[in-house]
């Protein structure tokens, strides 16, 4: 299992989602993507999109208005 980091700090909507989408395509099943973002819309649209694709996802707030999203590629 490999871990990938993706820095999406200070990126405008929808760049975090597009970056995650491109990265996920290159990853293997079981790999984990750690995404850092300060955009609260990413929480909604990245999570909604990933859940729809059937990957595992969760997130935590690491600072005021800064989040880390974890995505495990499931298929």
């Amino acid at each position, binding site marked *: 299992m490999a871990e990938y980091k993706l820095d999406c700090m200070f990126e405008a*909507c929808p760049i975090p989602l597009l970056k995650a989408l491109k990265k996920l395509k290159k990853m293997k099943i079981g790999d984990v993507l750690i995404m850092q973002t300060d955009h609260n819309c990413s929480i909604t649209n990245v999570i909604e999109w990933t859940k729809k694709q059937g990957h595992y*996802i*969760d997130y935590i707030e690491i600072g005021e208005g800064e989040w*880390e999203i974890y995505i495990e590629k499931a298929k």
Partner: protein
Amino acid sequence: MSSNKIEELKKRRQKEIKPKKSQLPYFFFVGFISFIIAYYFLNTNIRYSIIWTIGIMIGITMQRSRFCFAASFRDPIMVGTTSLFRAVIIGLIISTIGFSIFQYIQIGNIANYSLADVPGQIHPVGFHTILGAILFGIGMVIAGGCASGTLIRIGEGYAMQVVVLIGFIIGTVLSSNHFEFWDKLFISSSKTIYIPKHIGFFPALVIQLTALSTLYLLANWYDKQNNIMADL
């Protein structure tokens, strides 16, 4: 949906995070100031205090729900999710019902009303509508938010959105200077169409609600269809 790997990562990270400071004092401070403003206008101009209160309530709702008009029209095309698009349709359905109640109270019993008597924003529709919509749509997606979205994000503290606001103000000033030109070119020659005047009040209401509900169902179906990864 979470997995063991993610839970482990989360636990590891949780230990490194410092506890956050409570932001409640700021909330009470700002809340107190807004209350004073509302209270001040209560005696001088009650209209201002009503608009102020409603504005704040809309702002809170939009921020908490992460409602975003830009995303609602962009996401269906970009990633195939229509949850925000459906939210906009529901909003339109509710406002259709609300506006028809107000309009019916105003003009329901008058046989030959003029359009100026009808409450709401009824404006000429024509080529300028399409042109304006395209310009606004392009700007909205590049800037990452429409007018309300930009304001919400400034409130949340995104510095980039301040640049957008400056552009927004420049654009608004320029367009109000140009308005006469557009008015002569398209707007004054375009027709104002108010469908209830042609086919009656209730048929128009039923048609509009049916159209919106159909759009909702279509959007719902589209959302379920798009389960494949978007090709980029």
